[in-house]
């Protein structure tokens, strides 16, 4: 058998396979007359969104749908916001509850007090003095663990709150 013969035989086989596969066609059939009615009979119409916002579902005991933009989502959104606030407040409480934060605040307060005293006298280098006092921090560096953990939790809570707020605005 020559190369041409083999090629021709392959093309014939392709055509035969293509013809065979046409036997699978089902989509052209008309839809059975009772099909649509049978589907619709199983459905319960969607009610309009209620004040609470939940779209009750409908299809045979399924749990209620929660649609984006509906009140169900609104309720979930508020819960998320409250959780973010609680997280932020927890972080703040941790920061305040540790001596690290109060140590830093005390250092800043005394620096500000010094600056105000100097500023009342001569305003010349007062800003430089304030900047160096703030950037130097307290005389002994704090252990900072409570400060860092608290700040991280606070940032997570505040970030979550902010992102969810922005997301809500855009949807």
């Amino acid at each position: 058998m020559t190369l041409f013969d083999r090629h021709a035989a392959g093309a014939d086989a392709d055509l035969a396979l293509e013809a065979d596969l046409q036997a699978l066609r089902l989509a052209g059939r008309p839809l059975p007359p009772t099909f649509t009615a049978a589907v619709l009979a199983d459905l319960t119409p969607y009610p309009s969104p209620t004040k609470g916002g939940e779209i009750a579902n409908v299809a045979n005991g399924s749990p209620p749908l929660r649609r984006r933009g509906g009140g169900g989502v609104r309720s979930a959104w508020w819960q998320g916001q409250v959780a973010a606030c609680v997280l932020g407040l927890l972080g703040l409480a941790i920061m305040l509850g540790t001596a690290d934060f109060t140590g830093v605040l005390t250092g800043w307060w005394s620096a500000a007090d010094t600056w105000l005293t100097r500023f009342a006298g001569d305003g010349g280098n007062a800003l430089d003095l304030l900047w160096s006092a703030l950037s130097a921090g307290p005389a002994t560096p704090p252990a900072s663990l409570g400060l860092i953990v608290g700040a991280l939790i606070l940032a997570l809570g505040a970030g979550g709150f902010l992102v969810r707020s922005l997301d809500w605005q855009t949807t």
Partner: protein
Amino acid sequence: MLPTGDAARRQADAEDDRAVRQTLAGDAQAFGALVERYGSRVIAICARVAGDSYEDAQDVAQEAFLRAYTNLGKYELGRSFFAWLYRIAVNLALNRRTRRPPPALGGPAGALLLGRLGDADPTGQPAAQAERVERGATVARAVAALPPDYATVVALRYGAELDYSEIAATLQLPLGTVKARLHRAKALLRPLLADLEGDVAR
């Protein structure tokens, strides 16, 4: 009549989205329009992917529409509704196929299967119809023996008569992957069909 061409497709997508909105607003009849539009193809997908008879496939298709209705709130307007719906049907049919692998050919069970899978067009002539039944059954058996990924592509292309882009949208695959799978499926089908034809002849 299902749309062909990009412009027609976009218009059909817009109409589908309108029907979805109406359905979600409480108009169940609007969903009926979607059933009318896509019912035939959904049944075809269920039949050819799962290897079911046309009658059994109607039950699976009905379940697919019910599932689509139940999850209609999750459908993102602006996407293609048809692809979303077909994907639900494909997944249901694949589940069904997994639960019930096709029986082996040969003997009374094979003959029964041929009759079950043939699904002749009731409008056809008796002789031609019988031939088509036999041929369709053999091919359906061969497709049912393919790995699910290949069987799905063949079922969508030939059973449901979707074009390549519709298959790609339904399966969320690149167009090239769809073509490659179809090519590979045909290569696998040739020997399968030859074997099945030999079995039927015996």
